[in-house]
């Protein structure tokens, strides 16, 4: 047992949830600091309960700790109460397992899951006593490395990182660690080490590229400034996911995490090609994990954690070809042990309704549809292959099966959107309610009625999607559209049964700036942080006015990144990276979107996106 705590009892007793900071969780890994050569602090830059819900860290934490010479520990953003105390009392940020200061580690890794965590990265560096800028660090500081979806456009945070790891972490870290251990033994300079890293596949070293700009502020070129540094960095990817590391003993938090359960990752990638979706492009091609392997994992992980829920994880579980047998197995295994099964991202059809009926209380659960757009025209633009007929048919079957609650998800601000598309949101919600009343005569409703919740988020164009060329709406346009949606719903016959929620427009705008931003934003982010911006992902802490003030002071126009129309031949900040999908393909899909042309999914027809070069997954399957 590690008896040491970095924080005094006084502090632990005067903050919210001291359990966030004491480590000691079941399956957390304690090693002898004198017996390891390399210490890695792995940070999810948000509060503990969010960070502990993330599968990626659990995978790499387990993988790194399987190396005898490496000890990987976890770090999360201290919540605002502790943040203040650490600054007031000059307490350095520490890793949970050893409670040792992060600054003494060899590596500090950040997983970058959403753009709104960027100021929290600076918080973690700052509290650790690590210089915020890569350029100011020495061998006394850890190597700061980032990975995860936002590393596919790392430019807005490029100055804060020594390295970015592009792609799936399982493949290249061992090589990177070996290189580090050798560099330390040989006594080479930190800069030379970074140059060596830049030659490894998947490693992007932002400081080794010079960015030049055109007069209009767009990028002219990104040029390597050291010998042997590649022009482009290609993503790393696991080709056989049935035969790669999986964490059998994930860490079990004492407090309730946001997602507190065993997670079975059934596949990576997606065949659907929805044009707004970044994950659908980044993780191509779709690769399935063998059901037999997953069954073993499930048993072992339930045993090692004692969790009472198991969940399948993927971008679109209905596309997993071995779903029926896997679900049958789980129902058999879990039923007797009183373990819940959670099946997110299932398409509503006869099979999924039957399964859901078996694993959950119909009266308590709700059906989820994500049409994303209100009209068939706009759904064709975004290539969301869900028709009104699919929805009404699925809803009908569900109502017969006893469901009476429906959740609908839409986006506002999609390219080419018109007033009719927005009006379609109210229409479809109304039709679902009407379907309920038509399906079930009054005496069969058991005193219940239909409840529909329609939610809209604001569309943010993301790098490496066909919509990376699309202008984003302004805040005013967003709010106007939300109002149109609300009025559209209010005008429906069944409006009493429809509740409408919409998201914050300010936060969406900031997300849009960072998503397609460039290096000029590094200064803005640092200045906003120094003015007190942290936890921007949390509505109560997000200081929109401070951000706008900082943009003005730094002479950076945020709308350059959001509402501007981009030309076909513009060089994007993320073009230095290769996610496996060709820019030509993405542009073709952008043109298809504008001409309202749908594209078939990968199982129906290969569209030549470029991911075929990996020789794996769905690319190797025979077409239907």
């Amino acid at each position, binding site marked *: 047992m590690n008896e040491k*705590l970095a924080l005094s009892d006084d502090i632990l007793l*005067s903050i919210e949830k001291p359990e966030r900071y004491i480590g*000691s969780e079941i399956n957390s890994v304690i090693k002898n600091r004198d017996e390891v050569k390399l210490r890695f602090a792995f940070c999810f830059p948000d509060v503990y309960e969010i960070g502990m819900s993330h599968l990626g860290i659990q995978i790499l934490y387990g993988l790194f700790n399987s190396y005898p010479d490496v000890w990987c520990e976890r770090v999360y953003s201290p919540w605002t109460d502790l943040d203040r105390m650490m600054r007031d009392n000059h307490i350095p940020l520490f890793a949970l397992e050893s409670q040792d200061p992060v600054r003494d580690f060899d590596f500090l890794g950040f997983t970058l899951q959403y753009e709104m965590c960027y100021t929290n990265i600076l918080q973690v560096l700052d509290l650790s006593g690590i210089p915020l800028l890569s350029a100011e660090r020495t061998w006394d500081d850890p190597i700061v490395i980032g990975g995860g979806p936002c590393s596919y456009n790392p430019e807005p945070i490029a100055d804060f990182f020594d390295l970015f790891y592009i792609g799936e972490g399982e493949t290249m870290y061992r090589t990177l660690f070996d290189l580090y251990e050798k560099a330390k033994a040989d006594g080479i300079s930190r800069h030379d080490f970074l140059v060596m890293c830049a030659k490894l596949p998947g490693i992007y070293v932002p400081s080794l590229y010079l960015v030049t700009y055109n007069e209009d502020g767009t990028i002219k070129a990104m040029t390597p400034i050291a010998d042997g540094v590649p022009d482009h960095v290609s993503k790393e990817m696991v080709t056989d996911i049935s035969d790669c590391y999986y964490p059998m003993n994930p860490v079990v938090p004492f407090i309730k995490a946001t997602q507190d359960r065993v997670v079975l990752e059934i596949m990576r990638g997606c065949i659907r090609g929805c044009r707004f979706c970044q994950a659908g492009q980044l993780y191509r091609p779709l690769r399935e994990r063998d059901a037999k392997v997953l069954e073993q994992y499930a048993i072992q992980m339930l045993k090692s954690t*004692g969790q009472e829920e198991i969940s399948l994880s993927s971008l679109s579980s209905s596309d997993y070809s071995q779903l029926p047998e896997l679900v049958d197995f789980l129902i058999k295994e879990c039923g007797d042990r009183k373990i819940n099964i959670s099946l997110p991202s299932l398409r509503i059809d006869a099979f999924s309704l039957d399964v859901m009926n078996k694993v959950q209380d119909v009266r308590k659960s709700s059906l989820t549809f994500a049409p994303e757009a209100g009209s068939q025209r706009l759904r064709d633009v975004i290539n969301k292959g869900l028709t009104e007929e699919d929805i009404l048919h699925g809803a009908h079957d569900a109502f017969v099966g006893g469901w009476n609650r429906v959740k609908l998800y839409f986006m506002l601000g999609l390219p080419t959107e018109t007033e009719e598309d927005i009006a379609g949101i109210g229409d479809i919600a109304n039709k679902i309610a009407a379907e309920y009343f038509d399906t079930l005569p009054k005496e069969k409703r058991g005193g219940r009625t239909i409840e529909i919740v329609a939610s809209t988020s604001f569309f943010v164009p993301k790098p490496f999607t066909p919509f990376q060329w699309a202008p984003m709406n302004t805040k005013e346009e967003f709010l106007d559209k939300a109002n149109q949606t609300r009025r559209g719903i209010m005008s429906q016959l069944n409006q009493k049964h429809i509740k409408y929620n919409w998201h914050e427009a300010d936060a969406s705008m900031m997300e849009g700036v960072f998503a397609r931003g460039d290096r000029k934003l590094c200064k803005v982010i640092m200045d906003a942080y120094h003015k007190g911006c942290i936890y921007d992902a949390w509505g109560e802490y997000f200081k929109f006015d401070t951000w706008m003030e900082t943009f003005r002071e730094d002479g950076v126009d945020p709308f350059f990144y959001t509402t501007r129309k981009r030309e076909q031949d513009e060089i994007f900040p993320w073009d230095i990276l290769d996610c496996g999908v060709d820019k030509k393909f993405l542009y073709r899909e952008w043109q298809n979107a504008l001409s309202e042309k749908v594209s078939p999914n990968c199982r129906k027809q290969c569209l030549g996106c470029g991911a075929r070069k990996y020789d794996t997954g769905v690319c190797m399957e025979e077409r239907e």
Partner: protein
Amino acid sequence: MNKVRLKFSKNGPIRFIGHLDVMRYFQKVNRRAEVDIKHSEGYSPHQILSFALPLSVGATSDGEYLDMTLNSLDSIENLITRMNAVMHEGIVITDGKELPEITPKAMTIVAAAEYLVSFRQGKEPDCDWERLLMEYYSSEHMETQKKTKSGEKTIDMKTLIYRMEVTPEHGVHMLVSAGSVDHLKPSLIMESFLHTQNEELKPFALSVHRIDTYLQGQDESGTYIEPLICREEDGKRVYL
């Protein structure tokens, strides 16, 4: 069906795990150890287990109790071994016994708790507290204000303290009334005492260790209290 009572300790960093999370922790221990625990009926069944007396966050203990209802039990010793094998090192099951099928819930029979309380470094009072505290304890009444749900009321702590002494290690060893009726927190005693010396208890000044939790019983010699699991040779029965 078997009812069991387990005694456990809680030490080290996980003293900061709150009561509800300790409950969730034991539910997971039971699944890891494949304990054949009984579940409640209904659509969201939960394990039938309950604790004797919540422990405040930050306090350590050698005398916590947990009651569980099982569908089957091979032996108490096996159960404890299996559970301890999958526990965090800071929580250890130290004893256990099988209970008659009809037994009142542990939390309803708790009558007292034994503590070792000490001042954290730098938080000691300015006065000669060891002598003065014992003087205070020797007075006929120890009246103080206790906060309750419906406001404050005056209580006499004297009748609720069964034993109190200062140890050679500068701790206060006390056996005091506890449970749902007359729960007396060690901090209230120390706070009230310091008030008589015109001093305030500094924030988070006390480090609290619970030694054991007691129930109340009756036999031919009178009313007594003893630990929830108590063997004759322990000699821990105290007649009131």
